[in-house]
């Protein structure tokens, strides 16, 4: 006798604890096995790209804060670099160093969030998450010293920065940078060797190098698949060509490798910040004299940075006015979701949540 069974379709989201926002997945299950996945986007769509067309170039900085709200510093950087490229604005050296320092701090904060929420998705009841948040809080405190805000920073301007870092920022930065390696070690002691974490993440949600490149995946997901591709090395911007750092890669491209790559990237970021503080010129301007109403010459420019989640690019078309004619964002978390079906189908319900968490998306950026 055979028992008649039928697949069940479940709406995972938009209100679900593990969708990292308002993402919605229509999943078809056969018991616990995933048969099909259909992502549904757009619950957080605010039309940022369209809004940008009616704002001046400086005002758009605030829009970029609200895309990847976990890593607004990187968004600021990617955007102002595109405007600088379009309008041909130079950036003072000191500003470039502070930009790199804040972008790397932001990378650490973002990877902390990614790691913490991955563990939360694994079912570790918020303990690793809180430890990750503790480190992130310290970095946010530093940002507060820089610009007064913690999440929506708007610290960068076309041509430099809002303002120079206050004098007490540097000792505070030293303290954070000195403590971070120990905190990352502590996190690794809790997570990396844990039998349950290994059982849950090894060989789950595997993405090969070919698949990753075919889907134009970037960032830690691509590097976990074994592709040593990092825009900071491949197309060095700001002062990255003067800094020494490694690009960590993974072997299998599974969830565990993504976690390990993020952990190693945090360590590399600490190295980068230490070098920046050493190399940085004492004093000097942090903002080149650029007008408030920037009138970029007619034309277009694309500029990308290696954001915490992958290649974050802004493509700006100008018609010579004070606002861009078109502003297109290459959002890494949106594009990293492309191979979702390849990673999820055939897996189990629990793996679906973990794999989805290991992609590390931010809905503000996916929907924009």
């Amino acid at each position: 006798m055979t028992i008649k069974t039928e697949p069940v379709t479940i709406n995972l989201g938009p209100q679900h604890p593990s969708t990292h926002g308002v993402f919605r997945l229509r999943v078809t299950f056969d018991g616990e096995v995933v048969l099909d996945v259909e992502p549904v986007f757009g619950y957080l769509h605010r039309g940022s790209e369209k809004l940008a067309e009616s704002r001046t170039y400086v005002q758009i900085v605030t829009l970029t804060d609200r895309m990847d709200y976990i890593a607004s510093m990187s968004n600021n950087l990617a955007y102002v670099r595109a405007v600088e490229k379009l309008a041909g604005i130079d950036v003072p050296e000191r500003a470039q160093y502070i930009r790199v320092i804040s972008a790397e701090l932001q990378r650490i904060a973002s990877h902390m969030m990614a790691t913490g929420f991955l563990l939360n998705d694994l079912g570790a009841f918020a303990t690793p998450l809180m430890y990750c948040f503790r480190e992130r809080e310290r970095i946010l405190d530093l940002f507060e010293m820089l610009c007064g805000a913690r999440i929506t920073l708007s610290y960068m301007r076309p041509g430099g920065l809002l303002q120079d870092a206050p004098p007490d920022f540097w000792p505070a930065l030293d303290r954070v940078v000195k403590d971070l390696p120990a905190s990352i070690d502590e996190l690794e002691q809790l997570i990396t060797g844990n039998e349950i974490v290994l059982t849950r993440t090894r060989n789950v949600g595997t993405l090969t190098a070919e698949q990753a490149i075919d889907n134009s995946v970037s960032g830690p997901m691509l590097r976990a698949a074994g592709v040593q591709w990092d825009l900071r090395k491949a197309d060095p911007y700001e002062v990255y060509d003067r800094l020494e750092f490694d690009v960590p890669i993974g072997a299998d491209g599974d969830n565990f490798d993504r976690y390990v790559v993020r952990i190693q990237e945090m360590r590399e970021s600490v190295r980068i910040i230490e070098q920046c503080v050493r190399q940085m010129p004492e004093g000097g301007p942090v903002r080149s004299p650029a007008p408030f109403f920037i009138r970029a010459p007619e034309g277009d420019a694309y500029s990308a940075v290696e954001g915490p989640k992958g290649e974050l690019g802004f493509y700006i078309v100008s018609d010579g006015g004070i606002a861009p004619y078109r502003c297109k964002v290459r959002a890494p978390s949106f594009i990293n979701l492309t191979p979702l079906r390849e990673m999820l189908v055939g897996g189990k319900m629990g793996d679906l949540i973990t794999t989805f968490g290991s992609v590390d998306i931010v809905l503000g950026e996916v929907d924009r």
Partner: protein
Amino acid sequence: MSYEIHAAGILDFGSIYAFIDSLLPEGLDWLAFTVGGFVLSFIVINALVMSTAVYTWFERRTLGRFQNRLGPNRWGPFGVLQPIADLVKLITKEDTTPDDADRWVMTLAPVVLLVPTLLVVAVVPFGQDSFLGRLNIGILFVLGVTSVNTIAIFMAGWGSANKYAMLGAMRGVAMLVSYEVPMALGVVGVVLLSGSLALFDIVEAQPIPFLLVQPLGFLIFVAAASAEMSRTPFDQIEAESELGSGYNTEYSGIKFALLFLAEFMAPLINSMIIVVLFLGGTRGFSPVPGQIWFILKTFAVVFALLWVRATWPRLRVDQIMGFAWKGLFALSLVNIFAIAIEVVIFQDETGAITAGQMWIMAAINWAITIAAVVVTARTLGQRKLERRRASPSPLANMYAEAD
């Protein structure tokens, strides 16, 4: 100073019977027992519900400390009145039932879950004379009654007509039924050693705690018990990051409060059973009365379970089933085999085993336990720490060639 069972000091159940009997005229013993039974049940159930309230506070505060935060600290000193605030909130909330729900099944499920949990307390010896029923098959009663919660969880999942609840309930049934087996087999070692199924006899048969004599049985029972109450790493029934809230997704108001109560009572009850079976129950050192020892030991076990909960992620549902049948089942058979042989060797003509012999058994069993756990970890653990060396993919040299 000796490790012994103390005569009841605080709540002597026998004397309560005697007191009620003395108030009634001669020949009405049956009435005395009825009234006494009601009074005692009332006391015990209320004490249990109150201690569950204390336990929720304890759990939230402790988790807070584990997680580098404060936990509830507003209402009352150190937030001890937080459970009352929670209760008021839950009672005043609207009690909703989905349109498609099977009303009767959904309404009865919390009761069906709570009652067996409370029934277990009937046989737990809180002191030499402090238990409700002197049942000589106590441990069988405990195992039988606790397995009813499988039905309750399925009722809750099925009745609320929600796909998440249904998934949680299906996982729950599969998991709870599987873990009944290692749980029962883990108890067999204790029964063999003490020669009795009654919980008070098991306490009396522990001149040294059975935790020391048969650590393997303790590990198996604790693992199975934490699966039975679906705590991390086995919390598949709720799995809040996967299923929203699992079987209780559609519950609200007082029905949710009852589920919540049963769920938080389960760790307490299971800890009591663990204390009775493996930690010597009410045994302790004078002059502290036995009940105090019992409470202290219970909260020590509760804390250990909480520690695990605060630290570990959850296993996937198929891995949990694999662990039950491949790991715990095999280990419990090893445990029973070892204990049975030792009992045959060491017992005298009357079947008694002295404390000295138990120490010898303890030494043997610790060796067996360490060997068995290492072998299991090697075979099931797949040596996951050995990772392939990462080498850059040939596709990665795009920028190197561009230079």
